[in-house]
């Protein structure tokens, strides 16, 4: 279909039985934007994508493309492209014909179909496998076919459901770059579902964080990364240390928080006052071994390339996750500290 200026989701809701898999998703997507849907497994990401694609009827709400109501159109009339989480390749068609399918549906001239198909196959590095059937491909190869099949159409909106989950790191990085490149050079609008924050952060213009079917936060990568709106988003964005504490005082922009065997200073997400029950969120990489700080005992050490991930416990038994460059041994006692600017403090009840 023709390009649009804006896509507007208005209270999009989808129920299965009496459970809402997605409730009240409202979002305006500008043309050319790259939106990532992010959230834990089962939070409704695929459901949102399916509603947008027209594959699931809405239980409530509406979708508008500029002034046109979209949610009543069948999927094939919306002109979107989609990469399915389960690939959904046509099992009876070769890789080439899978990719060419959409172009043939648009009745493009034979030569065009051929050229664009070849190009898309080259893009996903499957030249060698072009004549194979899907069942003869490895998982990652199938996933790449699914990507090629969707982007070859250069649709006005591309929906991708975890398109890189089965690729190795190197290829994933390359494919990320390709997808971004395509997005930019073809002027696509992309809605991208991923469970991988890093991927989302590096690719998207804006992120939508879902949890149990509800939007938790919408923002740029940087906003989400540095200023998660609540403890769930923080948790999800890699703040693995979530320490239940109590505010003891405020100092300028910072608050002092305390708990069993722990004293920290941090940045409050909302105004807080002494005595409030709070959760302090700290990323493992922000919790570094240092001289003055909280004493902990190392329990598990995981090698992770240049650094190691350390699971430790305070003397009171609170587990903390720490990153270290040198390698402590289990049983070692170390002290850890965190920059107050990187300690986020949320009220406990927020959800």
């Amino acid at each position, binding site marked *: 279909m023709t390009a649009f200026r804006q896509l507007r989701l208005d209270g999009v809701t989808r129920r299965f039985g009496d459970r809402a898999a997605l409730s009240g998703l409202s979002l305006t997507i500008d043309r050319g934007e790259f939106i990532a849907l992010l959230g834990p497994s089962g939070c409704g990401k695929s459901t949102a994508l399916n509603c947008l694609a027209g594959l699931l*009827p809405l*239980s409530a709400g*509406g979708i508008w493309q500029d002034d046109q109501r979209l949610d*009543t159109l069948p999927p094939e009339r919306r002109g979107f492209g989609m990469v399915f989480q389960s690939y959904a390749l046509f099992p009876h068609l070769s890789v080439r014909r899978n990719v060419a399918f959409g172009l043939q549906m648009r009745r493009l001239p034979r030569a065009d179909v051929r050229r664009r198909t070849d190009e898309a196959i080259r893009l996903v590095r499957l030249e060698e496998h072009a004549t194979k059937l899907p069942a003869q491909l490895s998982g990652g190869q199938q996933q790449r076919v699914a990507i090629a099949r969707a982007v070859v159409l250069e649709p006005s909106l591309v929906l991708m459901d975890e398109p890189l989950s089965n690729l190795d790191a190197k290829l994933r990085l390359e494919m990320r770059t390709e997808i971004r490149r395509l997005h930019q050079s073809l002027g696509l609008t992309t809605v991208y579902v991923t469970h991988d924050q890093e991927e989302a952060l590096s690719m998207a213009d804006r992120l939508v964080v879902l949890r149990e079917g509800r939007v938790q936060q919408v923002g740029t990568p940087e906003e989400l990364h540095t200023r998660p709106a609540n403890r769930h988003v923080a948790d999800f964005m890699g703040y693995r240390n979530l320490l239940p504490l109590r505010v003891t005082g405020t100092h300028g922009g910072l608050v002092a928080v305390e708990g069993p065997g722990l004293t920290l200073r941090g940045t409050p997400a909302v105004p807080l006052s002494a005595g409030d029950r709070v959760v302090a969120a700290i990323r493992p990489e922000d919790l570094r071994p240092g001289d003055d700080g909280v004493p902990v005992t190392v329990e598990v050490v995981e090698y992770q390339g240049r650094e190691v991930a350390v699971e430790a416990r305070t003397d009171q038994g609170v587990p903390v996750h720490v990153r270290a460059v040198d390698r402590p041994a289990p049983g070692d006692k170390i002290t850890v500290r965190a920059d107050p600017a990187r300690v986020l403090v949320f009220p406990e009840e927020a959800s």
Partner: protein
Amino acid sequence: MTPDRPAWRHRLAERGIDRQLLLLLPALLAVLLLFIYPFGYGLGLSFQPDHGGVLGAYRDFFTDAYQRDTIGTTLRLSLPAALLNVMASVPIAYRMRGRFRGKRTLTIVLVVPITLGTVLTAEGLLNFLGPTGWFNRTLMAAGLTDTPLRLTNNYWGVFLSLVITGFPFAFLLILSYLSGIDPTLERAAATLGAGWWPRFHRITLPLLAPGLATTFCLTFVLAFSVFPSAVLVGDPAGATRVISIAAYHAAYETYDYPLASAIAVVMGAVELAVVAAVLGLRSLFYTGSTGGKG
């Protein structure tokens, strides 16, 4: 952009009503135009006998043991035959899933009897299994029996002809239903320690159940309406006096169309009862994608 209509449409769509239902239309029209009216006429006819009031024809049928017993006779023939056809097809089709040389030929040969038609089957059975047919000659030459076995003009003749014509039918259907089941599932079961039998009856069989039910129903219906072979290789006055013979007698010998219609309706009702029982069982099983084509 009227807000009402689309919402209404969504609500219908959520309940499964949308334009795709139009795909039913041609079939529905065909059945309505070509079947419902004539059938209604026939049904009406069954309530207009020459004597005995509205239910006279039915009363005639049910009060006459000779007529009534045909239901039992037919069921005794058709249920075992349909069951055997389905049950024999399953292991064979199951075995034929692997790849091996000559598989295609074997399939074709197994399906060939479908082309025989009732007449050739009947003639063949009479010739082959008859008192001086090759079968009995072989048995007698081998000294296995002194007097020829009676396999025709009785229950067994009809039963065998139902098997010969019904088996390939069931086999073909079941083979294709089986091909729709993702073999990976059985492999997954194997890694969970399931031997061939649990793999088969815990995984394959439940996934095959809808296909089995349909196949059983269709073979049963075909066997239930057996007519020519019941006459040709059976004992049409006695052991194989099936219900369609009674209907035929009424329609084409005494030209009592109301009675014939009534018998046919009874026939349909009995079939319907069996089919409903089977489909009822079927609905207990899973009916959805079996992953094979995905």
